[in-house]
């Protein structure tokens, strides 16, 4: 007997955005009833692949065969009509419309006169939701439902449209454990009825609970595919992060000195039990003056959220932040800044620089209140501050009046760093400080972090670059699913231990001596 025909086959798919090769010859095959995990770190190309499959983007090269026929969807509607449904991470429904209308939008049952048949619509909506264990009044606006129930409506919508393939993009990120169970039972039912599921998630437990096969993307390329059971957690994590467990590594790839800083005394920052619904579950981190504490973990593990919670940018359900012995009122960015916490955000473009303003103006922006008297900005003081930091951070600009938008990524990052250093912070939270900047600038930023710590600043370092995290940090706190799962100190700060902690594997004594062949 021939193996069951593929329902979806993707070959050599490529997609380039200006400056980024998002997909590079990616293959993907799905069989009916297969639950396929699609994983990869930030920027690996998962979202682009999903968007190409669902008709949001068009590929530059490669072809898609769906149910034996070549297809090229140009709108999400076409993909949906053909039988590929998608559930997005953020619920993508219309809050003001009723639950039933959301379920049936675009395919409403109609009477012979061509008018909408509300009786049938409500009846069928009710049945469809009951089948997924959701009991709500389908006439109510969707908005009146909780996030989990809304996600179940999205799910019911996706599977009700005669889908052959259902793509789920982090469907559990806003669900309760009970709701996750419901979702899994729905997925099992889909599998039994021969529907293929693409499951995107960073939660390893979930992947192993429902997925049979896996595709790992990294930098737009498929780096692994096969049965999930053939790959243990450690293997999965290392494939994702691009680290071969047997790989010989030499040290000194980064510009960190590798010396542990003389961190001593009372913590300058002590965050205890930070809890943000669905994001963080009691995360505690302490940083002493002169110490660089790394935050390790996969995408979605709560690293950025921890930094944001400390800096007051995320409202806390519970938990305390104490800066230099003084408790901080939660949920207020100005209060955090006054207390001496500076956050260098992950997304430079949207949360950091003002590209149309000059280097000088960008640096002075946050510090303006300190540099002015009676509401008037003192030009001389601004000049002094700008001059100091341009020199100290070696910012390469034609003059302080050059627009920041014209600078390279590395120099933009330095300008941002200068902005926060101008505030005289006690604690510096760095979220992916070297992402997307060139090698030279990266080395300089790393060197700067070292120098700043040596000057007595407490630094929290978040980085997806394992080398940077390992070599730059004195300690690494490891997060998983919004909770601390381990802490590495001293000689334990190694890639091997870090990945084992992330994967949830206890280090097997003597099992793998990674550094054995190291010179």
């Amino acid at each position, binding site marked *: 007997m021939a193996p069951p025909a593929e329902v979806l086959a993707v070959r050599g798919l490529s997609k380039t955005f200006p400056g980024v090769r998002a997909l590079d010859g990616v293959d993907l095959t799905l069989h009916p009833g297969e639950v396929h995990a699609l994983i990869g770190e930030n920027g690996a190309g998962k979202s682009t692949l999903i968007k190409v499959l669902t008709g949001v983007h068009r590929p530059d090269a490669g072809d898609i065969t769906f149910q034996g026929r070549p297809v090229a969807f140009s709108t999400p509607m076409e993909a949906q009509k053909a039988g590929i449904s*998608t559930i997005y991470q953020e619920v993508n429904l219309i809050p*003001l419309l009723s639950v039933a209308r959301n379920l049936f939008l675009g395919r409403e049952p109609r009477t012979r006169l061509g008018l909408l048949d509300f009786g049938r619509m409500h009846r069928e909506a009710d049945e469809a939701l009951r089948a997924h264990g959701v009991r709500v009044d389908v006439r109510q606006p969707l908005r009146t439902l909780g996030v989990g129930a809304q996600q179940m409506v999205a799910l019911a*919508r996706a599977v009700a449209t005669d889908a052959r393939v259902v793509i789920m993009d982090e469907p559990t990120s806003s669900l309760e454990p009970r709701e996750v169970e419901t979702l899994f039972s729905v997925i099992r039912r889909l599998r039994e009825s021969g529907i293929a599921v693409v499951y995107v998630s960073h939660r390893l437990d979930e992947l192993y609970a429902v997925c049979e096969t896996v595709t790992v993307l990294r930098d737009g390329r498929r780096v692994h595919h096969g049965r999930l059971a053939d790959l243990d957690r450690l293997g999965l994590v290392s494939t994702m992060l691009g680290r071969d467990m047997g790989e010989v590594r030499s040290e000194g790839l980064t510009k960190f000195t590798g010396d542990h800083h003389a961190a001593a005394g009372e913590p300058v920052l002590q965050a205890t039990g930070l809890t943000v619904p669905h994001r963080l579950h009691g995360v505690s981190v302490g940083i002493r003056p002169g110490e660089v504490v790394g935050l390790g973990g996969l995408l979605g593990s709560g690293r950025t959220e921890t930094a944001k919670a400390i800096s007051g940018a995320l409202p806390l359900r519970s938990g305390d932040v104490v800066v230099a012995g003084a408790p901080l009122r939660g949920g207020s960015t100005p209060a955090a800044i006054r207390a001496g916490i500076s956050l260098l955000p992950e997304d430079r473009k949207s949360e950091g620089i003002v590209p149309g303003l000059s280097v000088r103006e960008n640096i002075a922006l946050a510090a303006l209140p300190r540099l002015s008297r009676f509401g008037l900005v003192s030009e001389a003081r601004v000049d002094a501050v700008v001059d100091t930091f341009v020199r100290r951070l070696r910012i390469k600009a034609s003059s302080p009046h050059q627009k920041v938008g014209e600078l390279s990524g590395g120099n933009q990052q330095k300008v941002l760093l200068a902005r926060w250093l101008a505030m005289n912070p006690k604690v510096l939270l760095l979220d992916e400080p070297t992402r997307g900047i060139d090698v030279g600038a990266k080395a300089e930023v790393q060197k700067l972090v070292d120098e700043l710590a040596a000057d007595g600043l407490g630094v929290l370092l978040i980085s997806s670059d394992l080398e940077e995290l390992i070599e730059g940090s004195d300690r690494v706190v490891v997060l998983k699913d919004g909770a601390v799962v*381990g802490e590495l100190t001293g000689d334990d700060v190694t890639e091997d231990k870090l990945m084992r902690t992330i994967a949830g594997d*206890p280090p097997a004594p003597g099992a793998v001596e990674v550094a054995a062949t190291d010179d």
Partner: protein
Amino acid sequence: MTATKTDAPTTAPGEQPADETEPVGSARSERLSALVQQHGALAVLVIVSLVASLSFDSFATGDNVSNMATSSAFLAIVALGMTFVIITGGIDLSVGSLFALGGVLAAWGSRHGTLVALLLPLAVCGLIGVVNGLLVARSRLAPFIVTLAAMLGARGVMLALTDEGAETYLIGKDSFLADLGQGSTLGVGNPVWVTLALFVAGAVVLRRTRFGQHVYAVGGNEDAAALMGAPVARTKVLVYTLSGLLAGLAGALNAAWLASGVTILGGGMELEAISAVVIGGTLLTGGLGHVSGSLVGVLLLKVIQNVINQIGSLDSSYQQVVSGAFLAVVVIAQTWLGRRRRLG
């Protein structure tokens, strides 16, 4: 090595299960807010009318009521189209100019017969609506700017047609067109019948057709609507086309009523129509609203105007002060209710 998985404790001690899934607000307060939002204007209309008919003998007379009804009819037709546009989250500033242009075109065309007199304004104003819609939907320009340009352009065309307003085209008596504008059936003016018919049709289209669903969906969450497969661009083109058509038709009917194409009409009518729609409970941000509310909004504006006229001692300028104040109150109430209902 064997993958002995010891699940790391993902739940820290002291963690409480998040209970964010409870519905926002109770169903009862939800329904109450919705009721006020949708029918608040109707309640005010009833109260104002009652007080007015008790206070002024001349208010509740047949003549006055029929006068108010007819003069409301034209604004109501414009507001009907505007309702669709605003529910998609857009705005149409061109309707006042299209109203005037439609009137002039109807009067100009009436010498070639009633059919031309009606079809010409519909064709021209509908076409301008299509262009508005294409620019908004396909070129992704801001509706405010696009329709502002159309407002200026359409006014220019109308002035060119009438030799800077020096020439006025008349509509001959005894034509079907004149009867449509000036005659009455069962004691009610024909424009009022046309308006009522259009509102019934509009309500059915908005509530009971797929196009209507898409209008709400586009205004409620455009990106989600697109991802759910709703034809966003087509819906937008259609609502601006509809708005242009209705503005042209209202202008033509108004010209038939006045027996001439009057060029000075229609100025500021777009703002009056927007006020009526908003007073009627349609959210300016889109996604929520109903045509019956807009009808009530128009009537309310006209009743307030009429009442101020009845108070002989008050300058008629106060009409606008009262209308403006009323609009402000409605918007504040909407925002407040919206915040309670977390509409955004």
